[in-house]
Structures are given as structure tokens and as C-alpha cells.
């Protein structure tokens, strides 16, 4: 509990610094963009988080995103068979889930290490992406004659700023106080919906109990009659499925597929978000609220460095350092037990004792 309060406080501090640093950060536009990114990255963080809780890991997530983007664009661009968007999306999500199924079966039935299976997947699906697109950027603009309403459609679904009029009363009220109208991106709404579903799944359903039990001690779960392989496979399917959803949202935003770029490093960000949010890579630990906070911190940090005019290339350094600091603090909290030292002095202590 303490851990999550600490994380939340950290999030508030970052947010406060962000608001204080630059007037541009306070704009409705920046907030809209932040919310959109939280929504998108949050979806894969939840997927990766569920998997990490069962003790699994998925390094192929970023490549599966790239593959899903390319697949969506390729399907929509086909001239011989004009795919409508919804069936195309359904196919992409199903194929994403199928990739998860393959990963899961390789891990549970063929007993290859998850790290190795998904590392290979990372190469294979990136490669398939390049092959499918001819290693060229594939645009959708001017290609969607069979769906005349495509632009309006994606706008409505992806960047619809007042969320189908749901925000009108709120913005009317805000207007009375002279506040800029707010906008909520659909990716965030979708994310919040997923958060709710995942929270119910993980914390109130029987399956959630199985996930934690498997993550903590797979053998004990097996000896208790839990179909461990089935639930582990399910976790891989959910994780790759979340990557497919991310890919579709990305197509709606970018209107193109960039084979080398789409989803690059995203697996690392997803793992980082989940771990920052309190999931343990050993499995069995973490919860949905934590993952949400972790994701938000992960999105705010680069924005903060942007606003503080720290150069772009510093982004990874900032993320890596934040993650490392979080891990050190977590370990300090854990080993503190009953010694009433403040966190900071404890960390200091352990750094000093390294020199001994």
C-alpha cells in the first residue's frame, strides 16, 4: 500500500513540476496529447502487466505492434478485396491473439524459455513486417476510396475531442468559469475501460487468483488442480492482443505504416511501465492501479524533459534512471521491515555499505 502511495506522490510531483516548468505544458492541447499517449501506452502496459504477474515476459510486443500496423494498412490498401475497417480490425486482433497463442504454447507445452521464445518473436514479427511492406512506408491517404468516410471515421474514433458529445455539459460548466474546454481522446476512454475490466478480472475473479498463484508458485497451483498451462497461454494471448489493439490505434493516428519504426522499443516501455507500477518480473506481484500510475509516470517523464528543454535523446536516460530509482526504493522498502529509518537514509545507507 505504502508503495502505491509513494508512486502516486511521485506522479504528482512530476506533474506539478511539469505544470510549473512551461506554460505550454498547461495547455489543453498538451493535456490532450498526454492523455492520448497514456491511453495507448497504458493498453500495452496492462497487457504486459497481466503477463508479468503470471511470471511471463513478452519481448515480442513491440514487433507485434509493428506487424499489426503493417497488417492493418496492408488489408485496407488491398485493391482486389476492399476490406471494411471493422472486419480488418477484427482480423488484426485475432491474429494478434494467435501470435500470443503461439508464444504461450511454445512456453508451456514445448517448454522453451519465455525470454527466448519472445526474443525470437521480436525478430520474426519485425521481419514479417518489413517483408509485408517491402520495407517501405505505406500510407493510407488516397487509398481509402472504398471507405469514403474513412477520414471522418478515424477522427470520430480516434481523435474525437469531445467524446461523442459526452463532454459537452462538462465543458459548458468549465466555460462558465472561463476555463478552456477539455477534450478526451478515445484511446484514453478505451484504456479506462480496459483498466476497469482488468481490475475486475485480476482482483475479483477466480482467474485473477489463478494468475497470482501461478506467478508466485506455479507448481503449487498445478498441484492444486489449476490448469496452469491454460492460464499462462491466456496471459500471452491477452498481451499480444493488447499489442494488436495498440497497432490499430496507431494506424488511426498515423494513417500509415513505418515498418522499422512502429512499436520499436515498445516492449521495453510496456515492461518498464508495469515494473515501475509495482509488478515484479519474478511474478505474482503487482496490481492494476499500480500499472496505471506506472504508465502515467512513463508518459509524463519524456514530456517533462521536453518542457525542461532536455534534448530528445535524453528520454531513455530519464526513463531508465526513474526505473532504477524505483527498483532501489522498492528493495529498500522491502528490506526495511521494522527498522524505522527513512527511505532516503536507508538508500544512502545501502550505498555506503557497498563501499565496505
Amino acid at each position, binding site marked *: 500500500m505504502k508503495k502505491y502511495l509513494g508512486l502516486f506522490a511521485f506522479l504528482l510531483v512530476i506533474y506539478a513540476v511539469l505544470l510549473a516548468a512551461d506554460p505550454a505544458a498547461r495547455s489543453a492541447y498538451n493535456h490532450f496529447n498526454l492523455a492520448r499517449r497514456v491511453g495507448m501506452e497504458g493498453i500495452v502496459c496492462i497487457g504486459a502487466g497481466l503477463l508479468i504477474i503470471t511470471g511471463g515476459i513478452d519481448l515480442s510486443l513491440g514487433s507485434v505492434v509493428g506487424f499489426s500496423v503493417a497488417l492493418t494498412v496492408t488489408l485496407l490498401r488491398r485493391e482486389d478485396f476492399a476490406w471494411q475497417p471493422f472486419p480488418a480490425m477484427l482480423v488484426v486482433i485475432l491474429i494478434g491473439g494467435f501470435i500470443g497463442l503461439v508464444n504461450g504454447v511454445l512456453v508451456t507445452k514445448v517448454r522453451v524459455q519465455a525470454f527466448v521464445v519472445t526474443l525470437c518473436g521480436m525478430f520474426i514479427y519485425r521481419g514479417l513486417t518489413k517483408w509485408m511492406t517491402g520495407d517501405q512506408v505505406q500510407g493510407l491517404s488516397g487509398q481509402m476510396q472504398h471507405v469514403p468516410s474513412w477520414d471522418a471515421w478515424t477522427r470520430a474514433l480516434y481523435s474525437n475531442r469531445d467524446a461523442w458529445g459526452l463532454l459537452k455539459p462538462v465543458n459548458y460548466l468549465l466555460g462558465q468559469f472561463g476555463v478552456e474546454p477539455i477534450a478526451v481522446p478515445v484511446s484514453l476512454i478505451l484504456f479506462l475501460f480496459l483498466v476497469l475490466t482488468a481490475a475486475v478480472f485480476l482482483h*475479483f*475473479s*477466480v*482467474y*485473477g*487468483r*489463478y494468475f*497470482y*498463484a501461478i506467478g*508466485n*508458485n506455479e*507448481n*503449487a*497451483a*498445478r*498441484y*492444486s*488442480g*489449476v*490448469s496452469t498451462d491454460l492460464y499462462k497461454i491466456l496471459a500471452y494471448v491477452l498481451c499480444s492482443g493488447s499489442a494488436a489493439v495498440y497497432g490499430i490505434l496507431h494506424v488511426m493516428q498515423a494513417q500509415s505504416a513505418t515498418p522499422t519504426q512502429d512499436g520499436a522499443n515498445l516492449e521495453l516501455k510496456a515492461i518498464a511501465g508495469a515494473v515501475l507500477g509495482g509488478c515484479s518480473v519474478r511474478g*505474482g*506481484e503487482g496490481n492494476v492501479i499500480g500499472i496505471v500510475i506506472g504508465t502515467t509516470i512513463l508518459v509524463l517523464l519524456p514530456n517533462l524533459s521536453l518542457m525542461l528543454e532536455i534534448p530528445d535523446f535524453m528520454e531513455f536516460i530519464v526513463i531508465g534512471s526513474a526505473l532504477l530509482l524505483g527498483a532501489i526504493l522498492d528493495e529498500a522498502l522491502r528490506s526495511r*521491515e*521494522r527498522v524505522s529509518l527513512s527511505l532516503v537514509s536507508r538508500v544512502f545507507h545501502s550505498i555506503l555499505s557497498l563501499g565496505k
Partner: protein
Amino acid sequence: MSHPNHPLLDAQGICKSFPGVQALQNVSLSLNRGEVLAIVGENGAGKSTLMKVFGGVYTPDAGRITFDDHRVVIPNVDRAQKLGIVLIHQELNLAENLDIAGNIFLGREPTWGGPLRLVRRQILKDAEPILRRLGVSLSPRQRVANLSIGQKQLVEIARALSLKSRVIIMDEPTSSLTQRETDRLYEVIRDLKRDGISVLYISHRLKEVQVVADRVVVLRDGRNAGELTAAEINHDSLVRLMVGRELKQFFQRTHPEKATRCVLEVKGLHWKPNQAPISFKLNAGEIVGMAGLIGAGRTELAETIFGIRKALAGQIAIDGKPVRLGRVRRAVAAGVYLVPEDRRGQGLVLEASVSDNLSLPSLDRLQHWRFVALRRVRNLAEEMKQRLNIRTPTLSQRVGLLSGGNQQKVVLGKWLGRSPRVLILDEPTRGVDVGAKSEIYALMDRFAGSGVAVLMISSDLEEILGMSDRVLVMHEGRLAGELDLASLSEALVMRLATGAGTNKSADCTETGPNL
């Protein structure tokens, strides 16, 4: 200066607590020079914690330790070793890839100038006299990985000697030794004593304590429960101090004598190639003991019946209805449950709470539309806590913090809620203290009384002889024979277990009207 009549090690008022547990409360003991002091107590009595305080693994919350007439603080293992106190853990800590000499001097290798140049010849030479002193005829060049557990134990002791130890602490040293290795260890301890080295000896086995100890200190619930001198040590006085009460009847037997209705039939089962198929029957309301040496295949048989392990061929049937093999869920649905051998690795999710562990196998029943029915989970856990007398402060306590006996009760309780038909218990009392042991026996008796077929796998012959209605003996992956209550004897079981003789009727042909 040290005084020969003063104790070498004296501890007064040691307290140590962990979150939720007061492990040691005002514990005192003193150890003389050249004395073997046994520390006895139930699981969770605080023996290991106390030893870790001396060994520098834990720092006590309160209390004072005097060593050689000096007040000392032992903040870490290094300091303990400098004082001459060496703790030999129950799980041996040896580098398997190194040879004996390398292990004895691990971390203290003499070097020639720089740290990278290890003087091999020197340590091989230095290891020689230490091994000779222990009467070990092994070459210091032998790789530790190839040694038996007993030999590894001796390497640990050699390491302790090379540290010029004055106190050697042995935490359940014989738990995985053969009888011959145990006897050898006794001799070594006697030699150590003659050389003026003191030994703190932790054990569960009362017999051993009688053989080896000069004095016994008994701990109960983290406090001193009493002390006995060598002359006073006997089974009853020890148990009385450990448990705090007389155990009325250790092996309970109230269930009816004649069980004839067959519940489980195993036919032609085998799980590895070139293995003789195994067939036997279990009747409702009987306790069948399964004896055999370690590695005889008893655990594998249990796992195959339970569906954890794939069978190559064979059938099992419950009440005459065949059950599909290789699926735990099918076995569970048929009412066949396994309490596994490795409690911490297979029986429990140590990080989860008592109530989560108790409910894990029954969640499919404790749910509404796939949502966990929290009230029913709580009721089940509360009921199991009462029925099994699980001692835990709350049901949300982490299982890993309970003592071994209470952990074992939780593992049993996992299946109790599902009304078992066949209960397979794999080493149900291993690492469990005397008090909990008799409770578990009483439970098994009650199971049998209510018509459950109980198969008890055990390496403890006393337990096999005391509890079983019938005994199956395995030897090298096959059933070597079956003994009924009338023909049961320790010698016969051992004969069959070691492959010295075969009893012709391996399956229970005289039982069961149908099938």
C-alpha cells in the same frame, strides 16, 4: 583471560521478533568448553533463529552474549567466524563445482602476490591433515558434486575446523544421512569434543539426542522450556518439555478394522519405459502405508495417479468408473487428492495468505459467475482453521510465516473442503514437530473413519508401522510386496524395500466384490 570453569558461550535474555512473530523471547543458554549441547523443540520453537543469532545471521533485538568472558556483538557471519563460531546450515552450502580442498578454503585461498594467483598446492596440502583428523579417506582433489550427502556434511565440518572454530553449530545434520553416515558423524562429534570444541546440535530426532548430547536445552514457543542433563534424557521427559503436556496416544486408531469396499483400482500403471506395471487397490476406510527407499518411485506413482505425471500405460478407476490419466482436473473431479512431498515448493503459495491457500483448489466452487465469493472463502478458511487447529494470528497471515506443522495442516486443509474419496499423503509429517504430528495422525484416522481411502507414503518406519492397516512396499519402480497387519514387521518391510525378497501377491486380490 579465559577461565576454564566459566562457560565458553553464554547468552542471556535473547529476544528476536519478525513481523507478526515473536521468534525468541528472553531465551538464555550457556555452553561449556568441549560440551555437546542439544537444542530441542517443536518446529517454530525458535531453535534455528537462536542458532542464526549466534552465527551472525540475525541480530537480536535484546539480550547479551558473552564469549570467552567478553561481552560480544555478532553483527555478521564474518565476525562470528572470527570469534570461532561456525554455523553449518541444514541445507549445505558448498560450491559443487569445486573440489574438497577448494571448498574448505573457499574465500580464504592463500595467494601469491596478486589475488588472481591461487596457490593450489598449498590448499591441497593444508586440507590433508584436516580431513585426516576427521577420519575421512577422501582425496582433497575430489569434486564435491560427486560426494554423498554425508560426505558433504563432513566437508562442511572440515571447513569449520579449518576456521579454527571453537563452537560448531549443526542444524539438523542427520536429516538426510543414512544410518552409517549418522554413526560416522557421532564419532566425529566425539572427537571434536575431545579436542575441546563445543557443539550446538539441533535435532528433531529424540533418539539421536540421547546418543550424542551431554545436556539438552528445550525451547517451546520461543522461550526456555527446560533443561536436562545426559542422565535425565529419555523420550518421555523430552516430549513433555517440548509439547508442554503428555501426548496421550501418539498413533491414533479408532477407525473400523475391516475395510472391503474397493474405491481406487490401479491397473498396469507405469510411467517409464521398461518398468514393471503396477497394480493395486485401495479400500474405503483404510490407511495403506507405502514404504520404500528414497528413489523407489513412490512419489512418481502418486504423481501419476494424480495426473501430474504422464503415464505410459495403465488405468485407474474410482468406484469402478475409469478416470482419464494425465489430467489433474480429472483426478480432482473424481475425488482423488494428493498432498505433495515438497510442502513449500508444491503444496503452498508461500507469499499468499492462509485463506488464499486454503481456497485455491476449491475456487471453482467458491464463485458466483466466476467472481470469487469472498464470504464463502472466509467461511471455508475459518472452518478449516477450527477443524485442523491451525495456529495463525489471522487468516490473512502469509503462509510462509507459519511453522512447518501449521503449514502442513494448511496443505491438508486445501483438500479437506472437497470431501475426498482417495487421499494420497506424500511424507505427511516430514519436518513437522511432535505435537502437530500426532494431530495429523488423528486427522488421518478420522479420514479413514469417514470412509476415505488413505494412501500414506512415508520413509518413517515407525509411522508406517504405527498407522497402516496394510503396507505396500516399492523397490526400484515396482511393487515389491504387500504386508497386512498380521505379518507387518520392520524387518520384513526393510527386506522388501531393499529388494531382498518379493512377496508374491502384490495386488489385493482378496478385496473388492466388484471390478
